[in-house]
């Protein structure tokens, strides 16, 4: 226990520092948190679906959960079931073998829902376009609100994409 505590103290707080005036992203994130609560009335629950990614996008989505990005501090968390989700984070060029599962997952997310396509494959402009095994852009299979460019997009860009989708969302709750 002593060693654990020592390591905790040694590592300190990695989460990147809260708003200095010119820290554009953090400022945005903080104000969006308020927006999130205002529009959704609660935190944002995100469900991830890999629809044929090479797993690089997954590595960067994982990275979002490290202490630097302080995701839960922003009111976002990844959930295990689409039934609990407000937003689907989808990667890959929609492998035809995953098409049915993707549709079903999307259908299982309660309305109103948002979809963010992560990465160039999901935007239909990466190295992997449509072929016998893939459909191409995610928007050919389910409605997409925001598409994040990059191969893979770094965590900050993924976060920006999620925030963009939330900010534009015409969601009103009783």
């Amino acid at each position, binding site marked *: 226990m002593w*060693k*654990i505590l020592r*390591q*905790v103290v*040694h*590592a300190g707080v*990695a989460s990147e520092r809260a708003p200095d005036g010119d820290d554009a992203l953090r400022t945005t994130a903080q104000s969006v948190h308020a927006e999130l609560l205002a529009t959704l009335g609660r935190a944002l629950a995100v469900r*991830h*679906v*890999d*629809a*044929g*990614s*090479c*797993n*690089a*996008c*997954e*590595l*960067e*989505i*994982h*990275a979002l*959960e*490290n*202490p*630097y990005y302080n995701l839960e501090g922003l009111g976002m968390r*990844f959930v*295990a*079931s*689409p039934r609990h989700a407000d937003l689907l984070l989808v990667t*890959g*060029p929609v*492998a*035809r*073998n*995953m*098409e*049915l*599962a993707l549709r079903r*997952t999307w259908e299982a997310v309660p309305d109103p829902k948002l979809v963010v396509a992560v990465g160039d494959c999901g935007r239909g402009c990466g*190295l*992997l376009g449509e*072929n*016998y*095994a*893939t459909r191409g852009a995610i928007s050919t299979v389910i409605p997409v609100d925001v598409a994040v460019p990059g*191969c*893979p997009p*770094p965590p900050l860009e993924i976060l920006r994409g999620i925030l963009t989708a939330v900010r534009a969302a015409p969601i009103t709750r009783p």
Partner: protein
Amino acid sequence: MSMRAKTLRRLGVDFTALPHAAVPAWHATVDAPRWLDAARHAHAAGSRLVSLWGTDRRAMAGGTLAVSAAYALPEGLAWVDLPMADGTPGYPDIADQHPAAARMQRAAADLVGIRPVGAPDARPWLDHGAWTEHHPLRIDPAARAAPAAHDYAFVRVEGDGVHEIPVGPVHAGIIEPGHFRFSVVGEKVLRLEERLGYVHRGMEQRLARTPPLDAHRLAGRMSGDCTVAYAWSYCMALESATGCTPPPRALHLRALLLERERVANHLGDLGALGNDGAFAFGLAQFSRLREDWLRLSGAVFGHRLTMDAVVPGGVARDLDASAREHMIEQCDAVQAEVRALRAIYDEHAGLQDRFAGTGCVTRELAARLGLAGLAARASGQAGDLRCDQPWAPYDTLAVREAVHNAGDVAARVAVRFDEVDESMRLIRVLCATLPEGAIREDIQLTGAAAFGAGRVEGWRGEVFVALELDAGGRIVRCHAHDPSWHAWHVLEHAVIGNIVPDFPLINKSFNLSYAGHDA
């Protein structure tokens, strides 16, 4: 050398050495009896099957459908090629000698339409019925009238109190998709059957339709977490087929990238393993270190995961002295933290209770199923290409192989800790001894049909690429093999007798690639 060359002779086949192979490789064309002999002799000599794949050469003069197998012999790679008469695309089943062949044979049946004669399991493997083409790796794939995913005949376990738990393809975390069918009694797993192929993207058809000098980018996206290993393996195959030797500085930089990729993945896994053992502290610590690691890669190589850094003939970017200094400083800082965390993991009773004895793979099982790489080394099955077939620059580095014997989750954790330590040493040496000179050599597509082979010890195990170019300098076939093929099969055995809640931990301790396998 005579001891080593013996295994190659024992296969009973006339081999031709691939002239410019960085890791020694031989190729031979055989008939059906010799195909089977080679499989038997390789098995008898304890040599594992690296990969099996099909090729359609009918676009070339005298070309046929063919099946190929690659065996890892002590002296190098033996690539055996069996052409098949048109109309009867069958070949002798080798899954009796090499159980790992079974799924690869099923994949070859899906992709090329060639069948192992007498194989007991004829179910499709990668083809779920949703593709728009039948046998997509043939030169004239037939369009499929009404593509629709079909049902799959899982093996049922009968008996009192046995029930099934289906999981996937969409899993509960941020993971790739695949289906697991558990047959359980109470909490205990009697049997696990995997169904994979969900992220099949037709990578090998794409590779065959890409100019050879551009295909490294596709290869680098077979499995994103091994992008350096794949890109290097592909480039090695291309360089071997075209007789190109990358400059020493480029080879050093490739090794530097490969070791950084190994550390990045091990850091991620060590954190995730702590988390799956209910020790969230581990995840927070290791994911922080991994982020530091990726950020430096991003700053130095222009890409956090160093995609597209390895290119045909060399590397895309040079590394200046200050970047090397940063890297060495980072090694010092991260290594000190990893050592402290290892002491914490080792002394944490709760974590060790979850790790020790869980998901055991005996050495015999690992050998029988042809397991290689990280998971094999955790089961006492030595084997690391960087040590056994040290290609440049590993021939000067004397890599220390990490081997543990217990075969459980704890051993797979220990191998990762050891390898992080060793990779840190290698990165320091590579930074300190970087040769002067160019970072890229031009590749001339020779205008002669040629075979090329690439083998690279990625963080998970051996990434193998077999490449065939035609006289026009086009890719006839590029087969890229992920070490997960063997390990997925082993995982089905590793979980038997364990409790269901330990499966995520066992699975994570292997951390296999779905994308690399499904391709």
